[in-house]
């Protein structure tokens, strides 16, 4: 079991969600973050003060997957999130020891299998 952490562009969230949906990856958690990488910084001016915006808006996805899904999930993101320009982001694959579904207290594989209802 792995936790896949992906940092992507906000305007690609759209496409990534669709791509994951097609790959049948349905459970995920999203948050807004700020990223620093190789991108050129935007310059803003507030009255006399000029600032360089070093951090850029990104979206962070966190997806717990069972082993057979690791590959497809990574591929789905890599494809949907890519523009080819600096700032596309990164994917980290982190090992996970246990997963629990809070509602049912199911553990591990069962916990990340989508609920049927």
């Amino acid at each position, binding site marked *: 079991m792995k936790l896949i952490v992906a940092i992507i562009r906000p305007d690609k969230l759209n496409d990534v969600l669709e791509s994951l949906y097609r790959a049948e990856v349905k459970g995920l958690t999203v948050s807004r973050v700020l990223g*620093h990488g190789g991108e050129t*910084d935007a310059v*803003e001016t507030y009255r006399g003060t*000029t*600032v*360089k915006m*070093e951090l850029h808006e990104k979206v962070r996805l966190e997806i717990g997957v069972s082993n057979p899904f690791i590959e497809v999930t990574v591929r789905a993101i890599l494809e949907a999130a890519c523009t080819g320009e600096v700032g596309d982001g990164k994917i980290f694959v982190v090992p996970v020891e246990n997963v629990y579904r809070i509602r049912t207290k199911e553990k591990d594989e069962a916990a990340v299998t989508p609920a049927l209802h």
Partner: protein
Amino acid sequence: MVSSVLSAAALLAAAVQEAAAAAPPPTVSPADTAWMLVSTALVLLMTPGVAFFYGGLVRAKNALNTMMMCMAAFGVCGVIWAVVGYSLAFGTGGNYLGDFSFALLNNVGLDAKGTIPHVLFMAYQASFAVVTATLIAGAIVDRMRFGPYLAFIGLWTVFVYAPIAHWVWGGGWLSKLGVLDFAGGTVVHINAGVAATVAAIVVGRRKDFGRQAMLPHNVPFALLGAALLYFGWFGFNGGSALASNASASQAFAATMLAPMATLVVWMLLDYFRNKHATAVGAATAIVVGLVVITPAAGFVSPQSALFMGALGAIPSYYAIVWRSRTRLDDSLDVLAGHGVGGMTGALLTGVFADAAWGGTNGLLHGNPGQLLKQATGVAATIVYSAIASFVLLKAIAMVSALAADARAQGRGMDISQHGEEAYTNGEGALLVLETVEAQPAARPAKVATAGGVA
């Protein structure tokens, strides 16, 4: 004796003159001046009203750009109005356009124009010119570049707004024809609504229009805008009586009542369609009700104002529903709100107008011809505004691209057009220092020091 009688008569004459001085022939009236001072201030507040109404409805990354499209009109359209617009609209001129007699505010002095100082009349009209131009912004927010936008509204004020204002209020052909437009249904709302639609088409659709949901980032701001508009509109309509009298009171009451009725009907339509009465809908309803009553405010009874408000909800409501299913990217529905609302109002004025309440009779009071006149006014405004706005936009497009490119739209118009953001917390903002030589440098490094968290 005779002489004494004569001198009595002379005294008498003096008395009469004194009495006359006490009730002078309508020169400047202090009371009318008081109300028109207030009305002008109220109408000027409508421009920030539009800024917040529109600004709340766009996404956060475009909020400042949207607001600036309104606030900057104070500068561009205000100055242009003083320089030439006022003269073209209200200079005597002919049937279609004024002249340059008031250009650069020459001859605009403290003498009476009606019962208020001329300079105040000019200021009142300036407030109309500014707010009308800002209405257009709603159709092209999120994408139109700021420079071309300013060029457009500046030119539009001269070449579209001023002429139509002359037709209706400056003694031009529509006023001679007898078209009723109390406070600007044609001049302001149909005119702006049509120009906005043309602009939406010429500038083109937003990146991701129809693909992504573009939701209001701050609905309370939209409500604030609607509230400021409602408040300011009392100057817009009530002030159009140009005096502090019964007509102003009637126009005021109509302006109060119509949006109330629109609001009720709109909430019902909303409820039956979506199972909810929405706040965005309520803000829109208030504005639509105000638009609808604008041409009629001083010509109809309070009851008719209620009716007009109620009826007026329907075309605009369904125009919005219809528009959102088309590929027309009139972002904030200026066509549905001001264009359709203005037409509804202008035509209903021809139906409900009542000579007993000022003006001429309309259809319901036995004068169907008025409806035809109203339709003429509507048609003339639509045709002229559409063509002239189109020509202006195309002319500007020859000099400079109208729309920001997809990348700039993606980053947001605030950053790309104004180099700033509406809401920042300073995280990761690196200060670029340019210390004055005489001062000890804050840091050894030449230009930059670390930014921090606000």
